[in-house]
């Protein structure tokens, strides 16, 4: 006999609303289903109503954690439509902000991951170090989240020399933090017991499900858009793409850990090599009629924007393929055979971002009338 065990829509393990129904026998998971759509806001439709410029801010708000990834990808796609290249300095600034955001996103992930397995002290430490990355972003962009650094044909804020030295001091702090993170997580036996051989996704399975980003790299699939299809200042910086073969939660953790130090390395290089010149183009041409595809390596994997223009002031169609869309498919195969206690850490290990995902599902407001035990049972009066 299996019961349905709901995780969500409002659950401490999830920082966003989503409903994960797990069929459990005792504590063991035998099946499951993800119900998304609680966060569906209709962004793709909304993007066709707004002007090209306003859409930068809309794209940024697809997801608050990887907002620069979204706005960079959108801006690059529109720039391709316009047939322009942003100035070199803008590319470097984009790269710096992009990697600084990857730092905060991965540190955030470590915190959340540690929180899922109940390691609150490590969680607090990760978030404490994350504040340094946020300080850095606030100094560059003027905000901690939803940075708004990109504009069409460049960036909006310059990095002045005194900001540069501020960033360097913060980078030193972060580098120390990354070293400590490795020790805290890598040398803890209880953590190992919780993450090793849990939620295994084999290489073949990963390829079949087309997962991207750290989820794929943790399963031994060597893909990274930054290296394979470089953009902004990535062609000019050197970095490694960490790949782990294990496919379990531990491998995905290690991939992220090594990406952290790579990000610091990239920011250092970009700061040193930053060319002078303007940060944005003065004149912008009108987007030509046609279509364009842009992709970047967001913190969770490859992010794709497709924009079709019909020569008006707003795009005719915007399609966003976020990394979480493909990564979420791998959740249920990973969870089969594990216990409820492992569900949150497996869920966290792919760093799911439901606000990224919930754009294209069909809005369905029909009442939840299933006979299974769902959150409705928590209600005072059960619906008849």
């Amino acid at each position, binding site marked *: 006999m299996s019961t349905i065990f709901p995780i969500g829509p409002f659950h401490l393990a999830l*920082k966003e609303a989503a409903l994960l129904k797990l069929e459990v026998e005792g504590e063991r998971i035998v099946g499951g289903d993800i119900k998304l759509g609680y966060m569906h806001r209709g962004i793709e439709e909304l993007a066709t109503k707004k002007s090209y410029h306003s859409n930068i801010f809309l794209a940024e708000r697809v997801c608050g954690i990887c907002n620069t990834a979204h706005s960079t990808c959108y801006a690059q796609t529109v720039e391709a439509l316009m047939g322009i290249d942003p100035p070199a300095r803008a590319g470097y600034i984009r790269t710096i902000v992009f990697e600084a955001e990857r730092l905060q996103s991965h540190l955030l992930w470590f915190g959340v991951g540690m929180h899922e397995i109940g390691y609150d002290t490590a969680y*607090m430490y990760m978030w404490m170090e994350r*504040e340094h990355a946020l300080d850095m972003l606030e100094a560059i962009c003027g905000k901690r989240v939803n940075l708004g650094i990109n504009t069409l044909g460049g960036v909006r804020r310059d990095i002045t020399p005194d900001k540069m030295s501020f960033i360097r001091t913060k980078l030193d702090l972060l580098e120390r933090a990354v070293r400590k993170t490795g020790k805290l997580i890598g040398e803890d036996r209880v953590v190992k017991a919780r993450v090793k051989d849990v939620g295994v996704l084999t290489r073949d399975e990963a390829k079949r499900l087309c997962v991207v980003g750290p989820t794929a790299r943790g399963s031994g699939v060597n893909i990274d858009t930054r290296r394979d299809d470089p953009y902004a200042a990535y062609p000019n910086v050197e970095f490694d793409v960490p790949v782990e073969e294990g496919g379990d939660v531990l491998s995905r953790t290690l991939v992220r850990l090594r990406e952290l130090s790579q990000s610091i390395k990239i920011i250092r290089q970009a700061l040193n090599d930053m060319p002078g010149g303007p940060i944005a183009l003065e004149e912008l041409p009108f987007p030509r009629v046609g279509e364009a595809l842009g992709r970047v390596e967001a913190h969770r994997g490859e992010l794709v924007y497709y924009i079709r223009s019909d020569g008006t002031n707003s795009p005719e169609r915007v399609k966003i393929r976020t990394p979480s869309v493909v990564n979420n498919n791998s959740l249920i195969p990973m969870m089969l055979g594990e216990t409820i206690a492992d569900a949150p850490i497996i869920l966290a290990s792919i760093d799911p971002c439901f606000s990224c995902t*919930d754009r294209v599902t069909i809005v369905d407001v029909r009442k939840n009338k299933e006979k299974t035990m769902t959150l409705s049972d928590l209600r005072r009066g059960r619906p008849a």
Partner: protein
Amino acid sequence: MFARKKSPWVMHLPCGGCNGCDIEVVAALTPRYDVERFGVLQKGTPRHADVLLVTGVVTAQVKERLKRTYEMTPNPKFVVAFGSCAIDGDIFRDGYGYAGPLDEVLPVDTYIPGCPPRPEALIDGLNKLLQKVR
């Protein structure tokens, strides 16, 4: 009442936002802002909560759930709309997924504008909310 002012237990309800507010709420719990020094605890179930902290736009899907969660919370209860999305829809207000501002669904006690508001703004907002509690 004195006790109520010093121990607001918060349940965080992430609706259809972009996550920005959600991570700022969590950041408020962490070392730099540490809302626990004001007695704030994050609770996972509405039964334990005093304050419902709603972030993100109220989408058509989440509307019913919000009402249900509000019903499940024992009295006295307070609702805080955190972030511009919850207050008036921010940039999503023209989309079809938007189901109206939060105060049309639940009675809101304090609004904290910002996109997202800084964790300091959350502390400030909670202070203002608790000043209202008598």
